C-alpha cells in the first residue's frame, strides 16, 4: 500500500474481503472483532485515515483468505455502519454486502451494567433488542438497561 500522486495504491487481493469506508480510527477494532491478530497467516492490508471523497477520512482493510460470515458482518454493522464489504474471488468482487443493523443481537455486545446477569458466569449469552437505529439504542433483554451509540465502543 503506497501513496502516489495523492492516490492510494493498494495491491489487489486474489481471494478475501475488502472492507472500505470504515469510520476513521475503527480499522484496528474491526480486525480485533474479526479475530485477526499477529498469528493470521495471510496478507492483511490496513490503511487508516486516508482521504475519501465521500467521508473526508476513512479506514480501509483488506484481508486475504477470509470471507466474512453473517455473524461477522452483523458485528461490523455496529462498529462501522458506513462500511462497505466486498467479497473478492479471482481478483473480482463476487459479492457486495450492505451492512444492516439487525433488530436483535446476541453474544457479541456486553451489557454496561456490571450487575446484569449477562456479565456473570450463568449459562446464557448477552442479548439486546435494537429499539432505535437512528440514533442507535440497544436495550438489554435481561436487565433492561439501554446502550446508546456513544457508549457502544466500550462494550466490544
Amino acid at each position: 500500500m503506497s501513496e502516489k500522486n495523492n492516490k492510494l495504491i493498494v495491491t489487489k487481493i486474489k481471494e478475501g474481503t475488502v472492507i472500505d469506508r470504515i469510520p476513521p480510527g475503527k480499522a484496528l477494532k474491526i480486525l480485533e472483532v474479526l479475530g485477526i491478530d499477529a498469528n493470521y497467516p495471510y496478507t492483511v492490508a490496513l490503511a487508516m485515515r486516508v482521504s475519501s471523497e465521500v467521508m473526508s477520512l476513512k479506514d480501509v482493510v483488506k484481508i486475504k483468505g477470509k470471507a466474512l460470515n453473517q455473524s461477522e458482518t452483523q458485528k461490523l454493522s455496529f462498529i462501522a455502519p458506513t462500511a462497505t464489504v466486498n467479497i473478492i474471488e479471482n481478483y473480482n468482487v463476487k459479492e457486495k454486502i450492505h451492512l444492516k443493523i439487525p433488530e436483535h443481537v446476541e453474544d457479541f455486545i456486553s451489557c454496561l451494567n456490571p450487575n446484569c446477569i449477562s456479565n456473570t458466569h450463568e449459562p446464557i449469552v448477552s442479548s439486546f433488542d435494537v429499539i432505535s437505529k437512528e440514533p442507535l439504542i440497544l436495550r438489554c433483554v435481561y436487565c433492561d438497561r439501554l446502550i446508546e451509540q456513544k457508549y457502544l465502543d466500550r462494550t466490544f
Partner: protein
Amino acid sequence: MIPQHLFSVRKISRDFFQEIFTLASSIEENPIVYADKCNGKLLATLFFEPSTRTRLSFESAMLRLGGKILGFTSAKTSSAVKGESIADTIRMINHYAHIAVIRHYIEGIGQIAEKFATIPFVSGGTGTQEHPTQALLDLYTIQKEFKNIDGLKVGVMGDLLYGRTIPSLLFSLAKYNNVEINLISPPALNLRKNITLRLQEMNCEYSTFENIREIVDELDVLYVTRIQKERFPDPTDYERLKGIYQIKPDDIKNAKENMIILHPLPRVDEIDYEIDKLKHSRYFEQAQNGVWVRMALILKYLEIG
C-alpha cells in the same frame, strides 16, 4: 393471564392486579378460611440480599396458609459463595419446593427463571430493577384507602434512580386511568433512562419537581423512598444527598385532609418520627398489607382456589 414467574409488573394486567386485591381483601376479612389452603406445600425463600419485610411477610403468608417454608437469608449461607450459578440454584429448588421467592442484587434473573424454573419463581426484589410484589401491596393499600386508583394524584419522592420499588410502582400506576404522577427528587437521583423510555412506551406522562412543597397540597398519595446507601458506587455521593429529602410535619401542613403517606420501608431519616403520629401516615398498615397480598399471590400461583 398470569405469567409463569413474576419478575416485572409490566408482565401482569390491571385485571390480575384486581384479582389479587379481591382475594387479598377476602383473606384479610376472614383469614381463618384460608388457614389450611397450602397444607403440604413448600415455599422456598432465597434471599441473596438482606430483607426484613419481604422475607418475613412471605414466610408469614405461607405459614398462615398452612404451608411450610425453607430457605436462606444470606448469600453467605448458600452455595453462591462456592460460585454456584443462579441457574443451578433454580434447577435444584425446582425439586425442593412448590413455589420460590428470590431476592438478588443481580439484575435479569427473571430470564434465567424462565429458562430453568419448573415451579413459579417470584421476585422479592431484583437489584435496582424491580420489586413487583411491593407494587402489588402499594396499590392494594391505595385502593383500600380511596376505593379507586383511577384519577388519583400521586407524588413519588426520594431515590428514583436506585430504588427498585419505584419502577414497579410507576409501571403499575401506568395501568390505571388518569393517574397524575409527580416525581420529586434531586436531579442526581432522577429516573434512569430505561425507565423513562418504558413509561413513554406505556403512554405514561409525569411531572418532575425538586421540592415537595411545590406539589404537596395537590397530592392524594405521597410515596417516599429511602436514599439507598448500598446502591451508591461512590459513598461521598450518598453523604451529600442523604437527608435532603426528609419529610417533617411542617412540609405537609398544606396537604389535603385525606392525603396518605406511604413508604416501602425501611426508612432511615426520610420520614420524621413525628409524622408517624399524623393521620396521613400509612406505611405500617402498608407493610401489614404485604402479608394479605402475598397470601393471595401464593394461592394464585399454586392455583389453589
